[in-house]
């Protein structure tokens, strides 16, 4: 028994800001003070509040130390661990209180959250199977193998109302039943951990923070559908996740929780890891399977669906990481528990990766039906620097955006689809008034053009044409007629593309056209970019009244576009100006504006 536990976040965010060094420092200093039998240091998965990383939590007090630097460790060891005095200056502001530390659960960031998929992230050491087992790990698997028939397992998943968390929202239980119904000499379970959606990192956090729950869930899925082999297809860009999965699989095999005759039930299940190599389209289920087989990851037409003819042409069930992460809890706590959360048609919780122009960037898990306002203003802490909220982008390059007028929409699959948006994998990027929506649409198109696999023409050529039209608009050469053409081409691509990537690629354009048409019109009619982003439409100007004639800008200008004499207002030659913005940064009097 240890009297204190020091939990240090070992997720990618905190690791990038030096948490391994912090752990090392703790271990050295604790040893130096002879506390190694009293204090245990544990590297956990992500706590969620990435904005304040690196995060260190000390129990039993539950002190949440934020933005800890390696040089702060000595003070925590000396003051807190040795003398029992909490280091106030490092405490997360929201947990400070006059008498003692306020529990994390009562802070704005955590109080509306309900962690199911992330339940062990930031709680256990992901590299130790015993900690997972201590937190009810592998109980669900034991229950399935020893008490339930495969049909009963599928029924529980169906009753829970769980829908695919990768974006599509297809009912998971139904998917399992399709594979189960097909007879074959070999079936497969595939976990889609190819989280290619930029700005989404919930799958990575689950794999890093709780890899055993994915192993347990996939084994349950194998039992329910009659599969004896599984593949986890994970991005090579997630080295920490891959390493922890490898450790977890080895530990599970050693304990007999994976492999032959699990729990003496006669059921065999084996798992392999396959590394992706950076192709967004591989997140599409048929493309992912083609990639596992060693090919270019091009999608295949459906039908036949994977449940009939999937990996290596055998019946296959493919689910996303977050979907699997819910399974052990559903089996253990029952379908009714899971179905008690969420809305009528979207049950349970959803993890969102909050990013962009928001104070508390990080991972949040909330019941379905929570409004965007709650997520952004309460949990996310609002927009920094006093800027105004403009829109939230969901669903990445396949999704749309939610404008401020719809900020009170309860978020679930159907509501988002109804407003022309998409749940997607759960990336939620917040944008403020400084972001140009046409530029954002162009950004996503740029992404899809790059990632289009080239197999079908509507996507390969169509997205490139869309991109060119957006280029024309942002360079000031667009006309109102172009906006109609843009829309027409969007619908054409949606209807005719082979796979999900192409069918959803125009969504960012359609959504911004729908909610921010005035911004498009400003670009084509007034030839202005209201947010001041599109360079071709900007002009730098000097306000004569404010200019003191200090010549600083003229000296800074790399192309000599600014002229004027000392103590007299200067002016910019717009024909020469390359719009680098150096003058505006240099001016101390706020005399230079862009419009």
């Amino acid at each position, binding site marked *: 028994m240890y009297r204190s536990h020091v939990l240090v976040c070992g997720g*990618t965010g905190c690791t*990038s*800001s030096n948490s391994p060094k912090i752990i090392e420092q703790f271990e050295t200093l604790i040893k130096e003070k002879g506390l190694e039998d009293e204090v245990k240091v544990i590297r956990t998965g992500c706590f969620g509040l990435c904005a304040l990383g690196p995060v260190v939590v000390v129990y039993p007090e539950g002190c949440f130390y934020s933005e800890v630097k390696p040089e702060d460790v000595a003070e925590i060891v000396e003051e807190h661990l040795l003398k029992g005095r909490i280091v106030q200056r490092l405490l997360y502001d929201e947990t400070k209180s006059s008498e003692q530390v306020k529990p994390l659960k009562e802070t704005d960031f955590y109080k509306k959250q309900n962690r199911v998929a992330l339940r062990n992230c930031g709680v256990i050491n992901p590299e130790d199977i015993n900690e997972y087992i201590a937190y009810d790990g592998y109980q669900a698997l034991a229950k399935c193998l020893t008490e339930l028939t495969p049909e009963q397992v599928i029924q529980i998943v169906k009753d829970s109302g769980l829908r695919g968390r990768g974006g599509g929202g297809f009912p998971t239980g139904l998917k399992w039943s399709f594979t189960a119904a097909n007879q074959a000499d070999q079936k497969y379970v595939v976990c889609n951990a190819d989280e290619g959606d930029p*700005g989404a990192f919930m799958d990575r956090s689950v794999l890093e923070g709780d890899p055993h729950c994915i192993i347990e869930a996939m084994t349950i899925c194998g039992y329910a559908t009659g599969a004896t082999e599984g593949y986890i297809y994970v991005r090579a*860009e997630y080295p920490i996740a891959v390493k922890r999965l490898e450790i977890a699989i080895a530990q599970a095999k050693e304990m007999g929780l994976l492999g032959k005759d699990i729990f003496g039930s006669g059921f065999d299940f084996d798992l392999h890891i396959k590394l992706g*190599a950076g192709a967004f389209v591989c997140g599409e289920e048929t493309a992912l399977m083609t990639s596992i087989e060693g090919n270019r990851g091009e999608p295949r037409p459906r039908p036949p669906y994977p449940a009939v003819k999937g990996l290596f042409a055998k019946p296959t069930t493919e689910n996303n990481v977050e979907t699997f992460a819910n399974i052990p809890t559903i089996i253990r706590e029952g379908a009714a528990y899971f179905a008690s959360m969420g809305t009528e048609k979207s049950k349970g919780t959803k993890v969102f990766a909050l*990013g962009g122009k928001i104070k508390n960037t990080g991972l949040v898990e909330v019941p379905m039906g929570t409004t965007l306002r709650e997520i952004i203003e309460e949990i996310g802490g609002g927009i920094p620097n006093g800027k105004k909220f403009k829109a939230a982008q969901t669903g990445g390059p396949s999704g749309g955006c939610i404008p401020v007028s719809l900020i009170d929409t309860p978020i679930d699959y159907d509501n988002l689809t109804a407003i022309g948006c998409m749940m997607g994998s759960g990336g939620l990027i917040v944008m403020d008034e400084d972001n140009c929506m046409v530029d954002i649409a162009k950004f*996503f198109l740029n992404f899809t053009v790059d990632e289009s696999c080239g197999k079908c023409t509507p996507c390969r050529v169509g997205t490139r044409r869309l991109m060119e039209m957006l280029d024309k608009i942002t360079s000031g050469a667009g006309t109102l007629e172009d906006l109609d053409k843009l829309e027409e081409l969007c619908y054409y691509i949606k209807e005719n593309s082979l796979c999900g990537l192409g069918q959803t690629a125009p969504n960012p354009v359609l959504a911004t056209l729908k909610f921010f048409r005035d911004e498009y019109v400003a670009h084509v009619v007034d030839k202005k970019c209201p947010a001041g982003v599109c360079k071709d439409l900007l002009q730098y100007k000097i306000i004569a009244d404010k200019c003191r004639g200090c010549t600083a800008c003229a000296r800074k200008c790399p192309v000599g576009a600014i002229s004027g004499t000392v103590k007299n207002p200067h002016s910019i030659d717009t024909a020469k100006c390359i719009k680098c913005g150096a003058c505006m940064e240099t001016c101390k009097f706020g005399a230079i504006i862009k419009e």
Partner: protein
Amino acid sequence: MLKKISKIPFVDTPEQAAKLDEIIAKHAGDASQLMHVMQVAQEIYGYLPFEVQKKIADGIGVTLEKVYGVATFYAQFALSPKGKYAISVCLGTACYVKGSQDVLNEISAQLGIEAEECTADGKFSLSACRCIGACGLAPVMTVNDDVYGKITAKDVPSILAKYAE
């Protein structure tokens, strides 16, 4: 995705060749392991020159077109060598809305190379990547295994200076 193909002549050491032969021999004849073999080969050489692709194709028992097809399909595979210091700027959404394009432009201007290129002395290479998952630190750039978060274009000179020696 368009890839830049290296014009630098291919040279390898006996150790590198031995490692490559070993991984090819381990998976000879198993086409489903092609990507894995290519990933290991890229670890050995830093990129996939034609000579290496040919060796893999022959060893695994697939056509060279197939290897080339896979190499050009996935962003991870490089057809030109990386610099001693490989710089990567995240252009994922979270980083982009916080100005990572400006950071990329600044590095490009400072080094005089475009994205997916390498400086003539082989010291720096520059690439744009899609989300490394450290969105809490946006905008993010990496130099080999060092991660720099919450940066602006102004931080670029001081970061590059660390690798100047």
